């Protein structure tokens, strides 16, 4: 059979979610998704072994959505940290953002790691060996500080280095649990760290959080075009999914040699970098964070860079970005509680 050169089809982002039925076989290529209203009746369902199951499953919205909404009703703000590209510093930025928010004693902060195959948040926060406690009221997040709780798949692995070899559907199931089972409690800001790409995890987080409302997404990029290329795709995703973009942060921009203080553009912004991209796309540019090797070291040791090097230029840049995020979220006054 000759392959088709059709335009890649996009998933229906507005499809109401319903509970996915248990399938007897893997979904076919053009599957509308077992949770869509088209399940079992779409053209592509003909001949699928799951057709009967999908068609007879109860229609209507996912019964877990009200559960999630109820659970998150005490969470005032929700921010997604996104980037199409891997390794640009999503997790680093999520940690720094959470630490910065938590430095304001008036705020309680939650950090949720939806990167199921490569969870880095626990290591960056120095809580890699913790496990989750389950009580009658739900799963208790791991508390890094008195006012900073975190949840990640890493806490559930029997061995630290175990690979999580899961297909999309299973990952979605866990993300749903993170939202419906975890006792986030009275939280001011929930930061959601995501894996690279525009796939299952992103779609799920978006649809699960739709009814409880997301403040918006912070996009992270590095200056070189190879990374910006993927970030453009992520902006396109946010538009299509209706997620407001709070702004763009450029990470790893410029490196100051500790020897001679000469600044090098390691990841050269040949196309104008993040600032130009933000201008072109009409989204706020939150700032550029220089590449400081000590940020990476602080992450490796699970320490807060902001506490360890408060005088560094990178720290000042990060704080400025965090203030920008606070402003874009519509929070009055200084979110860091410093001014």
């Amino acid at each position, binding site marked *: 059979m000759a*392959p088709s050169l059709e335009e890649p089809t996009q*998933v229906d982002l507005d499809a109401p979610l319903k509970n996915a039925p248990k399938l007897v076989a893997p979904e076919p290529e053009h599957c509308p998704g077992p949770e869509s209203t088209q399940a079992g009746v779409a053209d592509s369902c003909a001949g699928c072994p799951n057709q009967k199951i999908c068609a007879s499953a109860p229609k209507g919205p996912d019964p877990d959505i009200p559960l999630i909404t109820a659970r998150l009703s005490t969470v005032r703000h929700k921010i997604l940290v996104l980037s199409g590209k891997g390794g640009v510093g999503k*997790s680093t930025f999520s940690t720094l953002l959470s630490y910065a928010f938590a430095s304001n004693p008036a705020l309680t902060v939650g950090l949720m790691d939806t990167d199921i*195959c490569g969870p880095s948040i626990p290591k960056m926060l120095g809580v890699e060996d913790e496990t989750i406690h389950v009580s009658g009221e739900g799963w208790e997040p791991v508390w890094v500080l008195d006012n900073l709780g975190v949840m990640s798949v890493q806490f559930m692995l029997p061995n630290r280095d175990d690979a999580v070899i899961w297909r999309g559907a299973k990952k979605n199931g866990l993300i749903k649990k993170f939202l419906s089972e975890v006792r986030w409690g009275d939280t001011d800001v929930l930061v959601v760290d995501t894996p690279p790409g*525009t796939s299952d995890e992103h779609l799920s987080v978006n649809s699960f959080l739709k009814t409880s409302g997301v403040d918006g997404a912070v996009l992270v990029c590095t200056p070189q075009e190879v990374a910006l290329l993927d970030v453009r795709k992520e902006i396109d995703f946010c538009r299509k999914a209706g997620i407001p973009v709070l702004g763009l942060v450029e990470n790893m921009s410029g490196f100051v040699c500790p020897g001679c203080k*000469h600044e090098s553009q390691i990841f050269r912004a040949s196309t104008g970098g993040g600032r130009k991209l933000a201008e072109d796309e009409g989204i706020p540019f939150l700032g550029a964070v220089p590449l400081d090797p000590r940020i990476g070291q602080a992450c490796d040791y699970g320490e807060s860079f902001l506490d360890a090097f408060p005088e560094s230029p990178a720290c000042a840049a990060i704080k400025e970005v965090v203030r920008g995020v606070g402003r874009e979220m519509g929070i009055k006054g200084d979110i860091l509680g410093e001014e």
Partner: protein
Amino acid sequence: MPLENIKKIMLVLSGKGGVGKSSVTTQLALTLSLQGHSVGVLDIDLTGPSIPRFFGIEEHKVRQAPGGWIPVPVHDKQNLPASASSHNGSSNGSTSNSATVEKDVGSLSCMSLGFILANRSDAVIWRGPKKTAMVRQFLTDVLWPPLDFLLVDTPPGTSDEHISLLETLLKSTSGPTAPPGQLAGAVVVTTPQAISISDVKKELNFCKKTGIRVLGVVENMAGFVCPNCSECTYVFSKGGGKVMADDFGVPFLGSVPIDPAFVMLIEEGVRPVYPKGTVVGGKVAIEKQSEEGSTTSAEKTSDGLLVDKYRDCSLAPLFDGIVGTLVEDIKSMV
């Protein structure tokens, strides 16, 4: 099966994103080609395809032929003349380099979802089953020319794409018609810092579970040489890759430093030029005087083949060694 044309298949894997999988894939492909092998590159990163950008062929589209897709050619098998740098560079002989000699290069072609998208900034928002189907299609419906090596560039993680890739490959390469030992194994890429290592360890466990041979670990972004004072800074720490490889009992292929000239080569197509006395990986990089007269403005332009310009890159000798080890290793397996 179109994969029958291919002698060896190598995967490039990493649990972590942005460590340089695509960059390493690109350089492995260029180096293999420089050593005279015919090479194909398959990019199965569906939501963030970077291979078209790396090879500077973003504008190209895949053509359809009866029975499948024709991959996009980067260059054909040909004879590269001695590079221009031999006239004005390295006259002292101590820095003699592959860049200065004539070379027979093998053909190089690529396949990526990027070639199928209508608009380069369009998001590909797919759930698992659709990605699975696309990966399978990439493995069965691409009409590769006869290849010595097929490199498969992967997205980060251990999920749909990886499961489908291995399911399909393990099935097709164990068939009676497949060349023996066709699925050579995986090259695992990491950066030196602990955060990256902890994700990449998961990938090594993935290889162990699925029975894929790990050909070796490449440590990327190990150190940055300041172009001003030639001091090397370990931006992302150092030595982590070697320790991890030893822990898992897999070969360590080498450390690759950050080379802004390589980024420039990819981003702007500028032939790499280094200040005098730059030392990369213990070797003196190709010294190319950038005085007026010797470096013509033509050299600064994007003329010339990527593979030709890559010969001037400081990373080329490093990858020449890595690829040499890999090819020897793969040969000895059969």
